[in-house]
């Protein structure tokens, strides 16, 4: 079976970088995800939203990529927000402790609406 290609789209609003992930998250995505992250670093965004609504699969190496991202955002005092994770992904993220360092929302809009409150809390 052919692996679905990993794609992404990103945009910046309300000091928030939104990366909509699409396809499979494995170690091969690391370079791309960090390239998007670094390319927006000049804009000094405060929040990073990773949207999982179009993610079909994530393996343990893909989780390691997310952990790396968590470390990075924590170093820069940015907030990591995960949106639209499936029930299974949410379970995995909870299992490995990723949810301790990120807020979870059902949609990007919901996440954006809650940003101010969460950052102040």
């Amino acid at each position, binding site marked *: 079976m052919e692996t679905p290609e990993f794609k992404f789209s990103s945009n910046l609003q309300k000091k928030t970088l939104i990366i909509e992930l699409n396809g499979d998250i494995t170690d091969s995505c690391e370079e791309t995800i960090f390239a998007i992250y670094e390319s927006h670093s000049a804009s000094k965004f405060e929040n990073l939203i990773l949207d999982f609504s179009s993610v079909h699969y994530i393996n343990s190496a893909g989780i390691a990529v997310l952990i790396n991202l968590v470390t990075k955002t924590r170093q820069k005092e940015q907030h990591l927000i995960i949106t639209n994770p499936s029930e299974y992904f949410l379970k995995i993220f909870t299992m490995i*402790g990723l949810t301790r360092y990120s807020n979870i929302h059902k949609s990007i809009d919901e996440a954006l609406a809650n940003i101010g409150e969460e950052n102040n809390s």
Partner: protein
Amino acid sequence: MTDDVTRPLIKENEQLKAQIKELERKKWELDKKIFELKVLYEIAKETTTTQDIRSMLKIFLSMTMGTFGISKGLIVIDQDRETGWEVVTARGVDLSEEVLQKITLNDFDLFKNLTDTCPMDSDTLAETPELLATPLYSWLKSVPLYIWVPIVIDGEVIGGICVGEKISGEPFIEENLNLLSIIASNCALNVRNAKLFQENIEKERIQRENEELKRLDKKKSEFVNMVAHELRTPLTSISGFSELMIKKADTKSRDALKKYSKIIFHESDRLRRIINDLLDLSRIRSGKVEMEKQMADLLSVIEMSIANVQLHAEKKKISLSENFPEKIDLFYFDKDKMTQVMLNLLSNAIKYTPDGGHVTVNVSLKGNDVQCAVTDTGVGIPKGDLSKIFEEFHRVNNEISRTERGTGLGLPITKSIVEAHDGILWVESEEGKGSSFIFRIPMLEETETED
């Protein structure tokens, strides 16, 4: 009354709630185990995609860290006996690449005796004074808790997976350590397979090189034997007739002595030509003879060569004809060397064509190449000789080659010159009907030649 009824119900309800909670906990644990099993399967699957140890260990480390939610980790391995242990891959490690490269073999001496997976804190490490000053220690010290998972092959620690704490803050439990050990065993197996694979590739390469060296050595010996044989033939004549002249000088007629002198002269000349040709061939093949390429007209070179052999052809009543395009652009080639090619091909054609035959020179353009075919109506070449025709000293066994002896190096030299022009030379022939020697060379411009 009410209390008597509700109390047991409340108790039962609480028991049920506790049971549900316990079941949920167990399901959670089961889910974790399923996840870990999936990871083992994934690791096994992913690591079969590469035989490169570094790439493979990179996958191992990221998958291991993802499985347990670890932010820092590295894998050290004894790559080979000469360079010793080295950090082959690292994630989330604050050490720069530069520092990582400075971590030396001594940094890992401590771990060589750790054959079991074990948690260790920096206090334990501090008990090893020689480790304190190493860059590795400075990293290990920055991680509150880390786990050392040895990679063991045949009872020998050949490396290890070194990971920091879980981001969940949970401690590593025995089951985690067991899973880490399984991952490391899998890792060891893959490292061993990859090393065997690389060793096999290396062995095959050496074997191929050895076979090639043996083949070249054999060819060289054969060549030396051939040269010795070719040189011995005229030398034997020279020596024999000289001896004859000395011994029979008083008894033999003047004409006979003159005949002996002639033979000695011709054989000496043949010896000189063989030696010159051998030197030529050797220089061209070793690249010591630079082709003196210049913008020139190949058609005029061919025409001059035809004119040169005209007299020889007329003596044998052989007609020479040419079939040229109107014009060929000037291009870069060595005029003298290409003249040598043409003279050789034309002389051979005339030599192997019986009296009254025909020799034709066809020149045509093939894209950016020019092709020239020298075709004769001669004796042709037997099929069995076609593949050997360009070998040194190879002669087709026919009457002409027995009576008109050349050096046996003309065609190899011709082929080498054509190849020095990035061209090819080949032969098409049918025994009894004739042969075509065809070469094709690119019409290079100066810039291309220099490149």
